[in-house]
């Protein structure tokens, strides 16, 4: 029994010695032994192609205005309620065959959960506001511009983010055809027509002349160029706001559709 144990021990020792010798003689064998990887040996992370800048809060919304296209004909009502008194009708298109738009002043949820938008439409008498279901309107757009027209000083000023960026002389309505005062907005932009008296570009506004209700296209007040620049500034129009052609072109490059127009 003791002899058998001694033999087994000798065999085990011999096997161990052989394993050590083999490991030493076979190249690369040790490389397969897993060792902890040093952190410093790892490659650096891939450098991102870009990194966003700091997140900034929205900031003041004081000089922002919103507008929206009219998706379907509707009735503007005095309150956000389907039973409220009607203020005016709202059409989807303008006489110039562009999409009709309204200024969006706010919104509220009425009883029943329906969302209504408080809007300023183009209507007579000028300056009215009312409510339509939100679903009547398309997506809201935002503008940062404001055009003021001073009918006493015959000057227009375009503001962006509250800062004046253009000051322009204008022609306004002659006595008996006054340019209506109040808060309006730019409804559309017409170009490449053949009417030199309107200059190269004309903006349609939501303002309507109370004195021109029988005007063929509804008596809407435009902001446009002219073929009589020598008359500007002056009281020369039937209610429209006229500018010299170079001025209307400068304005066109900075004033988007939807811009509020304040005439005083």
């Amino acid at each position, binding site marked *: 029994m003791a002899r058998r144990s001694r033999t087994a021990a000798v065999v085990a020792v011999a096997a161990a010695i052989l394993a050590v010798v083999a490991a030493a003689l076979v190249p690369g064998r040790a490389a397969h032994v897993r060792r902890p990887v040093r952190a410093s040996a790892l490659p650096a992370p891939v*450098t991102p192609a870009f990194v*966003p*800048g700091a997140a900034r*809060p929205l900031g003041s919304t004081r000089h922002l205005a919103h507008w929206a296209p009219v998706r379907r004909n509707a009735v503007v009502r005095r309150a956000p309620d389907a039973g409220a008194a009607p203020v005016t009708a709202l059409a989807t298109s303008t006489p110039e065959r562009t999409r009709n738009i309204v200024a969006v002043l706010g919104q509220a949820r009425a009883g029943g959960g329906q969302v209504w938008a408080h809007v300023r439409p183009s209507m007579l008498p000028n300056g009215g506001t009312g409510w339509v279901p939100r679903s009547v309107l*398309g997506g809201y757009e935002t503008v940062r511009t404001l055009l003021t027209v001073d009918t006493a000083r015959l000057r227009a000023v375009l503001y962006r983010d509250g800062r004046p960026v253009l000051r322009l002389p204008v022609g306004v309505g002659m006595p008996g055809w006054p340019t209506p005062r109040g808060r309006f907005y730019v409804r*559309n*932009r017409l170009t490449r*027509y053949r009417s030199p008296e*309107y200059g190269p570009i004309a903006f349609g506004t939501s303002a309507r002349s109370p004195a021109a209700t029988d005007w063929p296209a509804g008596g809407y007040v*435009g902001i446009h160029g002219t073929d009589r620049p020598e008359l500007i500034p002056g009281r020369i129009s039937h209610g429209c706001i006229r500018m010299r052609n170079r001025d209307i072109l400068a304005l066109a490059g900075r004033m988007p559709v939807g811009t509020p127009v304040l005439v005083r």
Partner: protein
Amino acid sequence: MSGPTLQDIDPDEALQGALASLCGTTRAGFLRTATLGGGAMLAALRTPAVARAEVSDLEILNFGLRFERLQAAFYTEAEELGTIATMSAAKQQWAQTLGAHERAHVRIFKKVLGSRAEGRPTFDFGSANATDAAFTRTAVAMEDLTVALLTGLAPIVHDRRLTAALMGLTTVEARHAAWARNIVGSAPAPEAFDRPRTLASVRGAVAQTRFVVKPPKTSSRRRPGFTG
């Protein structure tokens, strides 16, 4: 925990239609099973296979810009219109932070793309951001969707540095999604893994939200008929 259903968070069914089409099921069938709390929404976003789309990095980045613009416009409009101001202080912080992040993402995409950046699309969110409840529901759905979208986009760009950048956006969007889910009391991390998606399915999902619309026609060549 039983979370809000997809019907709750997407009353206009804009996202539902997109998700249903991606899952190869009908809208009605999808709605029968979809719950946010169980993580079914993310499960539903999974596609059976991820194919490496042969599209350029420029195209992918422009798509990323388009989607970031969608998100930024959603949050910004809600803030401008006063919806966010009606919320609790915690929700205001959440909504304003997400809006600020998405606007930062838009700025960096525009900067990287430069003159090759696509123009801003026209959006119509309808009533989806008009009330606290509608805004929150849609934001939760949008953030979940964004994670799935970016997980699909990041690996298919050809430039590893772009992949690294998109991964940076993906993790932030995942935090947004978890935060949004926490806001509505839903499980912030319902699944152990978010599967990637193909670019084509991502495009389809965005198209079918119906938040991206044709711009209204506001210019014309007609002769003016103004008062002159």
